[in-house]
């Protein structure tokens, strides 16, 4: 369709190359080693994740992307400690972790704010759980609320906020615990396109200004390229690492880059990986059985 001459997504400018060299020299925050996850289903064992290995460096922004059923949500839930892997290890700062903990903050697609707490109390929740005094927690919380620009809404309840605002509170709540890594499970999936774009910029802004490593799950290719340093591409059935792509789009990111050659080249590569061209014998019967149904006296030949 498009005959644009795109560079290879593997081509990196010196600036970008230099950044990746420096990034890889930073300490490893999260390391996943030989992670497997099987589910016992009605039709026997289903392998959701198979031999996942990757490393995330300090202050890196990693996006995980893959077709539906590739187990990306399972992966992040295992990393958050909400599910146990069948085998394999995950190391945080070199130490093995089990079960959920405040060292790995999580932002869910469904906001999951506590409806009975005000914005401020929601953000204070984790800080208080850590055993900090109420006063300290309150002070801490207000700083994070200010960071996400919701100071005016500190006393509001979640149901009084819009979706984007709720997700900002959820981010503040996760960050207030000062986790080593922020896990985000399609956090902007439920938002409309405009709010989503705004939230992406907020997130980048926050990421720039604080010491946080982000692992972000999405199914939106543009979102992945726009946000990530590196993109972990999974493939489905079973969920395996297909490729770890170093995004050649220079940092800092801005919306104008959506049409830059590097951006489009990366997108093309992702398209190839995630939506491969279906071959004839690949048809598994999942298609519309199209017959043209118009009345005999319909004088419109075709909609075009």
């Amino acid at each position: 369709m498009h005959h644009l001459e795109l560079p290879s997504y593997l081509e990196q400018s010196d600036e970008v190359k230099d950044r990746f060299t420096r990034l890889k020299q930073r300490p490893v925050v999260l390391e996943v080693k030989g992670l497997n996850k099987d589910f016992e289903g009605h039709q026997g064992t289903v392998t959701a994740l198979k031999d996942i290995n990757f490393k995330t460096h300090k202050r890196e922004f990693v996006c995980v992307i893959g077709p539906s059923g590739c187990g990306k949500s399972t992966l992040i839930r295992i990393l958050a400690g909400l599910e146990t892997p069948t085998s394999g290890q995950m190391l945080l700062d070199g130490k093995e972790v089990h079960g959920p903990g405040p060292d790995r903050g999580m932002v869910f697609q469904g906001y999951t704010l506590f409806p009975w707490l005000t914005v401020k109390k929601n953000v204070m929740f984790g800080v208080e759980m850590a055993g900090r005094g109420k006063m300290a927690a309150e002070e801490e919380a207000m700083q994070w609320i200010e960071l996400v620009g919701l100071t005016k809404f500190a006393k509001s309840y979640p149901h009084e906020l819009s979706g984007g605002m709720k997700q900002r509170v959820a981010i503040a709540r996760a960050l207030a615990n000062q986790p080593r890594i922020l896990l985000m499970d399609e956090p902007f999936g439920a938002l409309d396109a405009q709010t989503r774009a705004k939230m992406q910029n907020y997130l980048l802004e926050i990421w720039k200004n604080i010491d946080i490593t982000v692992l972000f799950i999405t199914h939106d290719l543009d979102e992945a390229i726009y946000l990530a340093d590196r993109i972990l591409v999974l493939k489905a059935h079973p969920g395996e690492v297909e490729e770890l792509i170093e995004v050649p789009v220079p940092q800092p990111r801005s919306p104008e880059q959506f049409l830059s050659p590097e951006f489009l080249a990366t997108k093309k590569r992702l398209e190839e990986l995630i939506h491969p061209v279906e071959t004839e014998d690949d048809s598994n019967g999942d298609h519309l059985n199209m017959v043209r149904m118009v009345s005999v006296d319909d004088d419109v030949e075709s909609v075009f």
Partner: protein
Amino acid sequence: MSSSQWFAVRKELRPRSRVAITVMSFILPLLIWSLVSYVPWIWHPKVDISDPGSVPYFKEGMLVDREVFDKESVTASEQGAALPQGAPANPIYLPAPHEVAAAFYTAFSTEPKRRNEKWLHESLWDSIQVIFWGFFLSSLFGVPLGILAGTYDFVSRLFEPFVEFFRYLPAPAFGALAVAILGIHHAPKIAIIVIGTFFQQVLVISNTTRKLDPSLLEAAQTLGAKRLALLFKVVVPGIITDLYKDMRILLGWAWTYLIVAELIGSSSGITWFITQQARYKNFDNVFAAIMMIGIIGLTTDLILGWLGKRIFPWQRQTARA
């Protein structure tokens, strides 16, 4: 307003229409009752004798079946004797609205027939105490157990099968046993209410607890909440509004057990008053007393509903109690 607006599926009516219909829901039954009571040709199967005429066994103020009255009138006219006179009337067990309305006052002012009997307000107070203690004791154990059963599979497996079985045993069946163990005063009545409420309460509350969005618990865990903190900082506040609604419904059930409970041992409370008044054929008092139960129940519920909105400010304004 067209009919399509009145019957729009799952759409709220305009506030004024809503109030009008709420009033109507009380006016309609009252209207039917009034029609039956005040319109002589609707029902009225009896005749209230005002003048016995020549019929020897008729007396003034006596209620006789209309057929009997007609037959005696025909007989009297054939014999040329004085005709009995009377007006159509309803059976004694259906007093007219104004009589019941008056009874709301007179029931309180009527002195008990015997010295050891209680005034109506004393009987009512007895009933309220029995309800309160029964519901309180049931909730004291039922609420925590329900929450625990809804939270921990272990507690659920341990208690719920038995509770499930026990709730099918009718509470009144334990009447004799309760009296044998607890004596004849308030205690066995409270026990019946506890038995009637507790088992339902555990199941209803454990179900409510299970409906808590599990992602809230997951979120809390990723924020560092553990065991007890999860229970007290997430589960309890998370279900408290639904729990409160459950309690209001359960309190209504407790009232339905009251009547049975009060017949056990020495009859007491509002039930004693009702049976006593029915024995004296003061059906206006009976109706008034029954309605008082309804009014007390509805008022408590409305007050609790109003309170709930104040205690739980995070409830959506649109969620009507």
